[in-house]
Every structure is written in C-alpha cells, then in structure tokens.
C-alpha cells in the first residue's frame, strides 16, 4: 500500500468501502481497469469469482492434472480429475464443466480453459467444485443455458479437423442431452438415423434439431413440410408417418 501514489491509495480505500472487498481484490480490479473507479466496479461485479478464487490454488490444481511434457490436460488428467471429483466421465455434468471452460475439444483442457473455467464457476479447489456439482447440474434445466450447452456440444464432441460430427458420437451426445430434457421421439430419431442415414451430422442439422424438439410437438401437428427444416428432419417426419409411429392430425 505504501508503494502506491496517494491518488491510487484513495481509490483503493474508496473501492473497499463501497464493495466491501479485500484490499487484494480492490487492487486486482483497479489494475484491470487501469485505475478507473467506474471500470473497476464493472470488472468487480462482472467477475464475482475473482473475489473468491485464488489464482495460486488454481495453478496448483492445474499442475496436478497436466501432462508432464505438454502444457495441457489430456485424457489421463481428465480421468484423474473425474476420479477426484467422484464423477463418471460420461456424466453430463462434465459437459457443463467443459462448457464453462469453453473447452475446444473433448477430454482436453488447455491451461487457459481450465483456470478460466474454474474461475468463472467461482471455485479454486476440487472440494469446492464438488460442492457446486448440484447447481451445475441444475443449469441443464435452464432453457437458455441448455441451448448454449447443446450448441457447444457439437464443436466440443467432433473430431479435430472435421466439419461434421460422426454419427456414433452424435447419437451418444443426443442420448446424454435428451436424457435430461425429455423428448419422446429420441429413440425413433436415433433408430431412423442408423437405418436411413448412417452418415455424419452437420452443424446445421444438429442445431436445428433442438429447434425442432422445442417448437414441434410430438404429434407433429405444427410441423410444416414447406418450412426450412433440414432435409434429414423432413425425412425423419416421413419415416415417422410411414411407419405409423405418429399420425399427423392438423
């Protein structure tokens, strides 16, 4: 504190009085906003976690999981992470955590993704994260967040360098996602894809399917075949009616 100029010191004091934050947090916020008080408040309220996470703890945690020779957490690190958390790697909560980390690829976290992600969740230890699991799980129930997680999942789950998602992975992801949000046609959809399509899934089909699930009722009464639904979804509707799984009543 003594190193600071008088004006800056005042600002730190002011910041602490108003926000009730610690001196360290005040310094961090003010530095981040180039010593503008207004900016510092914005920063503080937009990053509530800075107050509670400890960067040093996060670094340690990262180092615990990272590959010895690469600056990254790879498959082994991720599975250790799951074990520590007492969570099955197939659990959907891992998808939610990855979403918070903005992870580019499944089963991989870069340093930035890992630390940034935990900061945004607002935890700096495995125990704290474990405590958070129920609330993370609950985020799936939120419509808006579910859409983000759903669309995030496409890029996250596909193979590196591929434009589309392999059918097998897509089916797995759908089963996982729609287990949380009940969609009565999910089994027909998966079966249809295996019997009639058997090819990778494009991003458009992936994201439009969620729209289909959300807007079209399971009796398909408000489905419009003239609409812009992807080809595959049109075919699916045809498949449903052909096989008598659904009788369209308009």
């Amino acid at each position: 504190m003594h190193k600071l100029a008088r004006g800056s010191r005042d600002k730190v004091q002011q910041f602490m009085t108003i926000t009730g934050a610690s001196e360290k947090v005040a310094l961090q916020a003010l530095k981040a906003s180039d010593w503008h008080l207004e900016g510092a408040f914005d920063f503080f309220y937009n990053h509530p976690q800075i107050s509670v996470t400890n960067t040093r703890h996060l670094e340690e945690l990262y180092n615990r999981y990272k590959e010895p020779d690469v600056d990254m957490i790879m498959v082994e690190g991720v599975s250790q992470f799951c074990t520590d958390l007492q969570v099955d790697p197939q659990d959907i909560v891992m998808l939610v955590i990855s979403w918070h980390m903005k992870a580019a690829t499944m089963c991989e976290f870069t340093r930035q993704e890992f630390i940034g992600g935990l900061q945004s969740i607002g935890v700096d230890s495995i125990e704290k994260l474990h405590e958070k699991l129920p609330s993370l799980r609950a985020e799936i129930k939120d419509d808006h967040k579910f859409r983000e997680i759903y669309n995030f999942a496409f890029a996250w789950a596909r193979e590196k360098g591929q434009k589309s998602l392999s059918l097998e992975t897509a089916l797995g992801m759908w089963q996982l996602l729609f287990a949380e949000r009940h969609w009565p046609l999910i089994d027909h959809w998966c079966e249809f894809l295996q019997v009639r399509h058997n090819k990778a899934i494009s991003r458009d089909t992936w994201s439009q399917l969620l729209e289909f699930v959300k807007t079209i009722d399971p009796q398909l009464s408000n489905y419009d075949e003239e609409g812009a639904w992807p080809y595959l979804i049109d075919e699916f509707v045809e498949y449903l009616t052909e096989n008598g799984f659904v009788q369209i009543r308009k």
Partner: protein
Amino acid sequence: MAGQERRTIDLEEGWAFMQKGITKLKNILEGKPEPQFSSEDYMMLYTTIYNMCTQKPPHDYSQQLYDKYRESFEEYITSMVLPSLRDKHDEFMLRELVKRWSNHKIMVRWLSRFFFYLDRYFISRRSLIPLEKVGLTCFGDLIYQEIKGQVKGAVIALIDKEREGEQIDRALLKNVLGIFVEIGLGSMECYENDFEEFLLKDTTDYYSLKAQSWILEDSCPDYMIKAEECLKKEKERVGHYLHISSEQKLLEKVQNELLAQYATPLLEKEHSGCFALLRDDKEEDLSRMYRLFSKINRGLEPIANMFKTHVTNEGTALVKQAEDSASNKKPEKKDMVGMQEQVFVWKIIELHDKYVAYVTECFQGHTLFHKALKEAFEVFCNKGVSGSSSAELLATFCDNILKKGCSEKLSDEAIEDALEKVVRLLAYISDKDLFAEFYRKKLARRLLFDKSANDEHERSILTKLKQQCGGQFTSKMEGMVTDLTVARDHQTKFEEFVAAHQELNPGIDLAVTVLTTGFWPSYKTFDINLPAEMVKCVEVFKEFYQTRTKHRKLTWIYSLGTCNINAKFEAKTIELIVTTYQAALLLLFNGSDRLSYSEIVTQLNLSDDDVVRLLHSLSCAKYKILNKEPANRSISPNDVFEFNSKFTDRMRRIKIPLPPVDEKKKVVEDVDKDRRYAIDASIVRIMKSRKVMGHQQLVAECVEQLSRMFKPDFKAIKKRIEDLITRDYLEREKDNANVYRYLA
C-alpha cells in the same frame, strides 16, 4: 317612324286574331278542308305577336302570350288528341300515336314560328324554357305520361310475336320507339326507364322459359345452333327497330339466359357435351361453342378445362399403349429403345399436330387453350415409357431419324418437319438437361462412327434447339459438329505430312479425329497395351500434331476407335471391321496360337468387364473368330482361346459388332451431378443479390431460374442449401431459422 304612329293593340283583340290562325292550323292537322298558310298569313300572325310584345308597358303582353302559347297546346291535346288515343288499343293505338306525334311536331313548328319573337328577347332575357321545348314538353306531360305503359306493353307484345315467327310492322315499331327517344329531348332516360328496362325483363323471362325446355329436349350441338340463331335474330332486331344502345344489354341478357345459366348442364351433356364433341372431332360444333362462350364472362374456363382433360386422357392412353406393348416384348431386349417407342413418339407428334390445329382453328388461338394444351402435354410427356424417360425417347427418336440407314424412308422435307415437331415437344419436357445429355451421347456416336446421314439436318436441328432452349443448350453440340469439320481438314493435312515424311510412314492407314474435351461426353480412358504397329501410328500422329499446335495435350480414347484388319483364314482372307480393342486382342494371336483368359487380361491391361465383352463378341457371337475351351456361350476366367483358322464366311468383308455398354445409368448420374452444380450456382446467384431471404422464396426463385432446363425437386434444393450452409456460403438468421443470410 311607322312605330310611332302605331295603334296600340290590346290583348283581347290581338289574341282573337291569333286564335283564328291557330284554329286554321288545327283544322289543317285534323285534315279538315282548309287552304294552306300563305306567307302573308304567316307574316300577319308574326307581326301581331311582334307588335303585342313591343308596346310600352302596361301594354307589353309578352308574359300573357307566352302562357297562351302553352295553353293552346294543352287545349288542343285535351280536346282532340287524348280522346282519339283513348279509344284505340294495341297496334291501332300505336299507329294513332305515331300520327299524333308527327302532327304535334308540325304544330310545334308552326306555332313556335308565329310566336318566334318571344324566343328572341323575352325568353332569352328571362331564361325561360324556349318555345319549341314548351311545345314538345306538353306532349310529354299530357300524352306520353298517360299512355307510356300501354305503349310499352303493346310494343313488347309485338316483339314477342316476332320472336315466335310472326310478321310484324317493323316500321311502326321503329317510329314508336323513336318517340321514346325524342321525348327525352336529348336524354335517353325515357327510352331506358319506360321501355328498355321492361324489354330486358321480358327478354330474360322469354329466353329463360325457352332454355328450360331446350336444355331438356335438345342435344348440345342443337342447343348451341338455336342459341346462336337467337343471338343473331336479336342482333338483327336491334338493327331493325331498337335503339343501337340496347344491343349490348339485350345480347347480354340472351347470353346469360341461354348460355351462362345452363353452361354446366350444356357442356356436360352425357352424349353430346364438350367431351363427346372432342371425342368425335366435331370441329364445327366446337368452333360454335367457342364463339358462344367467348362472349361470356369466364365462360371459356370450363371448356378449356375439359379440353385439357381430354388431351391428357388421350396422351395418357398412348403412354399406356406403349407401356403395354413394351411389357410384351422379349425380356432381353427390354432396355433397348426399339420400334414401339419410335411409333409412340410419332403418335405423340400426331396428337400434338391435331390439337394444335384445334387450338388455332376451333378456339381461335385463345391463350386459355394454349395453356390447357401445354399443361396436358406436360402431364403425359413427362411420364416416360417402361423405364425410359421421355427425354431419352425423344433423343433416340432424333437419333433414329438422323442416322444412316434410318428404318423409315423419309424425304428431306419429312425429316425437317419431324425434327421441328420433336423440338416443339421438347418444350413440354421438364428434364431438358437429360435430353441434352442423351442427345449428345447419340450425336457423338453418329459423328464418330460416321453414321450421320446428313450434315444439313444435324445443323438444322441444332438451330431449332437453339431457338427453343437458348445458346447455352446447344453450344456443346455445335462444338461437336464443328470439331468434326475441323478434323476432316486435319486428316488431309496429316496425309500430306505422312507423304512428305516417308521415313515416318507407319505402313498403316490412320485417321485420327481430334476432339475438344469439354464439348463431348466424357469417356473413360484406359492404358491399354496397344500392339506395336498401333503404337507406331500413335507416335506419328503425335509428331504431326506437334507441328500444328503447341501446348495441347492429346488424350487417346481407344475405346472409340475402329480397325479394318485382314485375317488370313485357311479358306480365304477376310477383311474384319472391328473396334480398336477387338483388334488389339486379335493381334495378340499373331504371337501365340493359344492364350488363356488371364494371359489376355495381363497382355491387354484392360478391366475384366471389358475383356469379357471383347471375348464374347469374338468367340460366342455370330462370327467365331476365336475358338473357346470349353465351347459354351459365356466367358469365365478359366477359359482358353485359340485362333479359329477354319473360320470362313461368304462375304469378303465382315463387321464384328461389339454391343455398346448400356450408358443410361451413367447419363442419369452425370445429369444428377450437373444439376447439383446448377442448383448451387442458382442459389448463390440469388443470395448474392438478395443477401437475406426466406426459405420458401428462395426455393421458388431457384425453381423459376432452373425451370428452363429442368424441374428441380424441393428436396434436392434443400440438400444443396444445407450443403452451402456447411460450406459457409449461407447461414441461418439467428432468430428465424426460416431465413438465410448470404456470407461473403
């Protein structure tokens, strides 16, 4: 100066004088013996009025005279005219009326002249009704108003009589109706309200009754003849005695009662309606039908619809017929487009000729019928016969006509005519691109194997196609024809080249046709191992070609080549006309007498499919140049072959055919691929100019753009849109998935 000395005339005196003149006039009108007015009489009467009007007040009697003028008419009408009209009826009453009216007009003329001075100053200064009009109005108010109902009734009764065929006094009617017009003094109100309205009502009732019985008793053609006759008569009626303004209204009523009201039962009459007329080719009746119903609002629509249905049924029957005869064919010939199909196309052409004539003659080229014909042909022209699309049938039809040795012996004019008609049929085919592809395949065969009968016809059909489908459609075909012309020139140059460089002469006559890659259908190239003699030929040509052009790459398509080779059999030497592949295979037997299947495959370096086909043509077909062990009719990998030196034939030169591979599937695939590009290009073009667009609109515009070449189906377009989204040309609008945005 005389005026100053003038004696003042008082009203009684002056009027007594006038009264005398008026009585004289009345007597004349009533036909009583009375001398005519002399000019002196007239001048005296006029002067009296003049004097009475120009005296100083209070002796100016203008107003009194003006009133007296009117009273004179009224008095005459009530005392003389009305009684004489009242005791007459019907036609006699009409005659009396006409007479009285003409008398009245005379009376008005004379009286208004006597009183003329009033008109000049008194009336014009006070803006009163002029004398002549006062006179005519008296007639209107006192007579016309009283008897107009009777008159109208009598006139209409006469008209009805005439409608029933009786003779009537048309001149009388013309005069009576003239009164209705004249009494209006320039307005048609009296004629329209007091007569025409009732006539129209009567006409409606009259024809409504007629139509009710005719529709039950008469056949459709008879009914139409009657209707046309009635319309003609009514039109004449207007000419004879009605006012011209009634024509349209009157005819409309008749048309409405006779035609519009009964259109459906009339056109749909079981054994004589529109369908029956079409079926029995009753062109005259159909023309009449068109004439009658073209005057009726939306009257032609049902006829056009029936026409469309009829033509569709006829065409569909032809398709069915062709389908049946195709299914009776021998199964092994099923895939070949044979004579039946040729006959089928001829029949379609005939059908088209017939109904085009109907449209232009019976239906006077009305757009509704052009449209109906087009829609009908589109229905069955796109059906195809037993697995062959109509695009293929038409292309084959053209091929059959254009190639040498055409089975139908047609004159040049007949060929031109047939080509013209096929091209016209093409307008109804939605898969024009498929036609183009098939046509190109067949054209390639005609050109390369010298099967084209006449260059003129080849060029002429291309011109026709160009006119109909645009330059893009025929550019490749034209390129192909041009290639051949250039190639002929090349060949002469090549022969000169070989003559000049004797050291290079391969010892074999060689003709090479150089083609431009893009124009021609794509052919597979194989690295076949050519016999040394042929390799030498190829080298010489390459040498020659390099002297002519630089930077051009030659790709050799041996599968399209032919060879004439001399085969020395024991009995005699026979010239064999074979394909280059067949020749290469046969020449292997110069080196060894027996070869196994696998040896042949390795030495030729060709695919199994090709080798089997070649061997089959040489050992299992009509001419057995090779002996096969075991001797059966199919080729298997364990067979062994041997040159059949015992072979002979009565001909000195024989052609050993190699059945062509069925290319239909490939053509369809190629077209499908081209369509994907075409759809992509169209979508990108549209989106590039619109930037943001709704799904349905985009699809509609895309179909519109492409319909000149083919009818893309919605699914295909959807797939291409999705593909373009994946390739980041388009994206969906964030909050409306039905809207696309162009990314550039």
